[in-house]
């Protein structure tokens, strides 16, 4: 990490959160976000994304560890932090019987340095719905209203919990554009998502959460690079994995066999692919459904899920 210590807008150290029933949702995570960065927390449902963000927003006190937002404790020093942050919760939180304009006006009355509500409604494309009751909005429109309110006070730090869930493709792209624009203007953004392309396309850095722990973290390129590339193919009748050249020699770090389908993982894609194809050519073997794929964030994500599932068929080689 090459960001100056003083520029850390969000600092999280060994953070833990335990719910009333004893469930440990966040199990000791550490990361930091620099000023003007977009940081994504990626994970499946139940990975601990929202539980973490709520601690950063100061909605709850951590069971252990430390959170600093703009150098302050967001829970204990709420009055100092809140005027400088904007929050978009995972789910609405608006009285269903108020109109969009009434909701925005109410929120504007509670935000220091609020922009005219109409401006932010226009920004998210809701100006035409100003007189519509919240209960009549679609899920996507509610998300956009939530985003508008989070932006009302021109916050320095923006927390977006699944900002594009429920949006259509166009709405999602609009939101991405908006977040990029905010980042360019210097806003620090922490978002959660379970859309891989959202994290890949939007985040400067990201952390993949799994069962309350950080399973991988870094820039999208770093996280991806740590992951193996994949080669999968179908062996013809009568051939087995044992017929291939020694896997370790091919640069293969792991493999799975599923019927006649073989999946290889490697950090040396060119070498493994070449050895495989040379072997197939020499042996006169036709590899069915051959698929050679470079490492991707999706692979990283699935890899983490796979490890968790403890796939019985997986055998790891010493790298």
């Amino acid at each position, binding site marked *: 990490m090459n960001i100056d210590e003083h520029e850390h807008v969000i600092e999280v150290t060994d953070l833990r959160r335990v719910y009333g029933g004893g469930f440990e949702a966040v199990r000791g995570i550490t990361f930091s976000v620099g000023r003007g960065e977009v940081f994504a927390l990626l994970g499946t449902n139940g990975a601990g994304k929202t539980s973490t963000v709520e601690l950063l927003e100061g*909605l709850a006190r951590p069971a252990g560890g430390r959170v600093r937002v703009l150098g302050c404790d967001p829970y204990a020093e709420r*009055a100092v932090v809140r005027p400088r942050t904007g929050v978009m*919760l995972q789910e609405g939180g608006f*009285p269903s019987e*108020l109109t969009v304009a009434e909701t925005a006006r*109410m929120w504007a*009355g*509670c935000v220091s340095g609020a922009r005219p509500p109409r401006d932010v409604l226009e920004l998210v494309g809701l100006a035409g719905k100003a007189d519509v009751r919240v209960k009549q909005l679609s899920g996507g429109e509610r998300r956009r209203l939530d985003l508008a309110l989070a932006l009302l006070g021109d916050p320095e730090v923006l927390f977006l919990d699944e900002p594009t869930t429920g949006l259509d493709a166009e709405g999602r792209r609009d939101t991405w554009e908006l977040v990029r624009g905010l980042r360019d203007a210097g806003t620090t953004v922490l978002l959660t998502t379970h859309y891989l392309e959202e994290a890949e396309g939007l985040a400067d850095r990201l952390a993949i959460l799994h069962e309350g722990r950080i399973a991988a973290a870094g820039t999208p390129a770093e996280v991806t690079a740590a992951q193996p590339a994949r080669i999968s193919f179908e062996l013809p009748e009568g051939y087995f994995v044992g017929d291939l050249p020694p896997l370790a020699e091919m640069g293969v770090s792991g493999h799975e066999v599923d019927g006649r389908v073989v999946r290889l993982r490697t950090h040396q894609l060119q070498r493994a692919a070449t050895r495989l194809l040379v072997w197939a050519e020499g042996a006169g073997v036709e590899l069915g459904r051959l698929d050679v794929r470079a490492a991707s964030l999706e692979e990283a994500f699935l890899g983490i899920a796979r490890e968790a599932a403890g796939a019985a068929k997986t055998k790891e080689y010493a790298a």
Partner: protein
Amino acid sequence: MSTAVTTPVGRMTALARAELTLLGRSKGTLFAALFVPLVLPFSAQMAAKEMDLAEVGLTLGTVILPASIGFSLLYAVYATLVAVYTARREELVLKRLRTGELKDTEILAGAALPAVATGLAQSLVLAVGCTVLLDVGAPRAPHLAVLGLLLGVVLCASLAAVTSSFTRTVESAQVTTLPVLFLSMIFSGMFVPLEVLPDRVASVCELLPLTPVITLVRGGWTGGLSAYEVIGPVMTGLAWAVLGVLAVRRWFRWEPRR
């Protein structure tokens, strides 16, 4: 819209304004808040006519007037606020509000303002109505009546927040509010003045949260409470108010149960 830093008053005003709009749009709550307290005094009047009030130094008016104000506090403030707090929690509005600059007490107070204003306005109307129609006469110790009313508002609002903590939906609020409503109406001197109850029962009833409110309001009109007699209800009322505030801090739920 101001570009300045928000103030507690400004924030609560913005919230109260939205709540007032919502109260106007919630027909069921509005009906219970406005209509019930205006009707109940008539049934209380029928009950009061059965009793020998003169023997304990009361008149129909000095029974009905405090009872009316009690009904108003119970329905316009208490029951309304249980529904409001519960609805806002279930819609995650409370959680949303807590992400902003509003402090917790500002959220509860701001949301309570329209109901409290309704209760106070209604009490005023009922007091004037009873004074004129039941020939009660002007209050002899108005400061006691005002003290009782203010105590009642704080008590009902904090009781509402506590009750709402144990209420999952707006529908179930119709059930969870019953204990406080019934206990107060029957044993806090509303339908039945404590003066006509056996001493032992009366001294237990005096400890109920709304009893000091009724006692003080009645005393405000009759002027029949000595300075010494005022201390008891004031202490009881304050004790309940402190308990209520502590209970809210301890038990109030800002989010629905998962």
